[in-house]
């Protein structure tokens, strides 16, 4: 041990020295006999591990950056006991051991993924309605002046809403001059029917079914859940980049998941029963629009993408038809024509802002 040579850099210059280690008190001195050089006193407790590759060990000094002491092979007796142990995977993992740590992380990761999927549904109902309303108003405003308003059309829409939403759960139901077969629920309890939907629909009962479905999203606060999920995802994924078109599409085509859609259908059926409107037309609407999946009417795809269509959903509406019930049409013929003609008749309604998003 007395003639065991370390190599050494003092952290001040790059000169390499071949030194002997002389223990003293709680530390040691390094000396280079050939040149008569002696370093400052170093405490054992200041030593840090810089690297331990193969048979090569390097130690640093937490008090002096760049100070290095190294050797090849085994540390000599009397010194090995004083040397600190290095990190391998990182301090936390070293403490538990590799496999236990990996196991614990796996469990935590599973919990986090499960929580991330379930959390939006838990958090959204906790957000006060007034916040959601204010946020929705800030986001939507007057929808760029695209709302269609004519006295007769408004009256017809109000008549429809009064039947499907008698308790005024939706804060606003409006018609927008957008030629897409769709209807959306926006934050703040706003339902917007697109003109394309009205032109595609064959009867007011179909529109009542869609309106009832959107009302289900309002009642269950699915939009807020979707927003919280979108927010969470963009934080987790560091959602940088993208373009505004994609953002808008994200809101319009926000998918709430199978369960939420099914629950919304349930609301639609309940509301229609209460209003004595037949669900048969809605079932027919599903069938018609589903059959066009590969047809030339590509617009139908919009509704399909945000409202996954299945034969099951169609059957559910069809099964809700009670034979012998005294159903009545959701709107009379004059009201229906006024509603459908509303966008064409309103000169102030802004045009759709381009072809497609």
């Amino acid at each position, binding site marked *: 041990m007395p003639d065991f040579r370390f190599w050494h850099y003092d952290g001040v210059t*790059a000169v390499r020295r071949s030194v002997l280690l002389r223990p003293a008190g709680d530390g040691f001195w390094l000396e280079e006999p050939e040149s008569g050089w002696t370093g400052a006193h170093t405490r054992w407790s200041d030593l840090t591990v810089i690297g331990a590759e193969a048979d090569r060990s390097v130690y640093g000094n937490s008090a002096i950056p760049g100070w290095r002491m190294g050797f090849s092979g085994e540390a000599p007796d009397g010194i090995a006991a004083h040397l600190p142990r290095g990190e391998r995977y*990182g301090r936390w993992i070293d403490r538990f051991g590799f496999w236990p740590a990996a196991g614990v992380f796996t469990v935590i990761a599973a919990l986090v993924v499960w929580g991330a999927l379930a959390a939006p549904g838990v958090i959204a109902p906790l957000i006060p309605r007034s916040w959601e309303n204010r946020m929705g108003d800030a*986001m939507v405003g007057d929808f760029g002046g695209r709302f269609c308003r004519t006295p007769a059309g408004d009256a017809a829409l109000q008549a429809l809403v009064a039947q499907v939403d008698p308790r005024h759960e939706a804060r606003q139901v409006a018609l927008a001059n957008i030629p897409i077969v769709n209807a959306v629920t926006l934050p703040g309890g706003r339902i917007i029917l697109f003109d394309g939907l009205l032109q595609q629909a064959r009867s007011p009962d179909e529109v009542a079914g869609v309106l009832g479905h959107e009302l289900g999203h309002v009642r269950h606060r699915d939009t807020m859940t979707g927003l919280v999920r979108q927010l969470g995802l*963009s934080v987790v994924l560091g*959602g940088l980049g993208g373009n*505004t078109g994609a*953002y808008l599409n994200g*809101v319009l085509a926000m998918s709430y998941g199978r369960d939420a859609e099914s629950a919304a259908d349930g609301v639609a059926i309940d509301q229609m029963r209460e209003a004595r409107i037949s669900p048969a037309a809605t079932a027919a609407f599903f069938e018609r629009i589903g059959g066009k999946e590969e047809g030339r009417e590509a617009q139908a795809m919009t509704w399909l993408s945000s409202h996954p269509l299945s034969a099951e959903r169609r059957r559910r509406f069809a099964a809700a038809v009670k034979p012998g019930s005294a159903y009545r049409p959701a709107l009379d013929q004059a009201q229906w024509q006024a509603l459908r003609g509303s966008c064409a008749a309103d000169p102030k309604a802004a045009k759709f802002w381009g072809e497609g998003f």
Partner: protein
Amino acid sequence: MDQERIGGDGFAFEGNWRDYAPIAFTNLLLTIVTLGIYRFWATTRTRRYLWANTRFIDDRLEWTGTGKELFLGFLMVLVLIGIPLLFLQFGAQALILQGHAGLAGILTLAAFVTIFYMVGLARFRALRYRLSRTWWHGIRGGSDDQGFGYGISYMWKSFVGSIALGLLIPWSMMSLWNERWNRMSFGPHGFEAAGDHGPTFRRFLLFYLFPIVAAVGIAIVAVAAIPLGGMQPGGNAGRIGGMFVVIGLFIVGIYAGLGLIALAFYASFFREAVGGLSLTGLNFHFHARTRDWFLLFLGDIALVIATLGIGSIFLQYRHWKFFVTHMGATGEIYTDELTQSQTKTSRHGEGLLDALDVGAF
């Protein structure tokens, strides 16, 4: 005295993929089970191995960066850039819904310019961070420049490079390389970067020549194919089938051709850039030719495909090894004059802004 003469080419890589494999595989596993958070510590472990097995003249390099500082850097990027962009995203959404598409466009443009600036800043800071955590003979590198000015240079030089049909791209790349390295130092010595874009320009012109050659080639093939097709017994069907094959080959050829030109240009660019770099008495060189780069990427692709993707954990190793084995230095360095760096990286806390490592973007 204390003078290191450089024999050979100065740099050597003494690692071995079998020693690295346990690091690579445990990194992969831990990164998966921590949903990616371990990647900062994984990067650190990998670099520590690669640096420790890289010899310069008579001693190995050391990497002293930590996973924690990379992680903090990532968190800072998330807070300083991610959250404002999130608000911007919702703002733009609301503006479009309300019909202010123009304003939304301006907002988006502002976000784009900011990100553009940040990319330049991050490049500078990544280099500074890496030098400040790289030690040799107990001495480290660094820079006193924060890189804010470089971010501006990056924006306008990239912009100027892209106008005029992109003819100024070699100039903009080399000029940015020089600007970056001229602000860096190792120990008391500043790097001097005097890379010249001129010699790389001939290869860059191939990008412009290639479409012309390709067009002439198609014309010749088309002229030659017309009589041939007519004579085929299959008649029309045979001719159309042949046409599809030719078009397919043509598309593959275009991609391969452009890829090779890019590789040839980059090989030349990197040789010139490193060749123009010096540190007091040391002059650096890079020896890899287009063929070497080509084999590197061919090897990468083969490795990743043959292992169904798992081999990608060795790419960092392969690239570092390629870099070190083709790196060279001539001249001399006086170790007694190579004193400790006084750059102020550690003054504003290890990591944080320093750790705007490119990987964090």
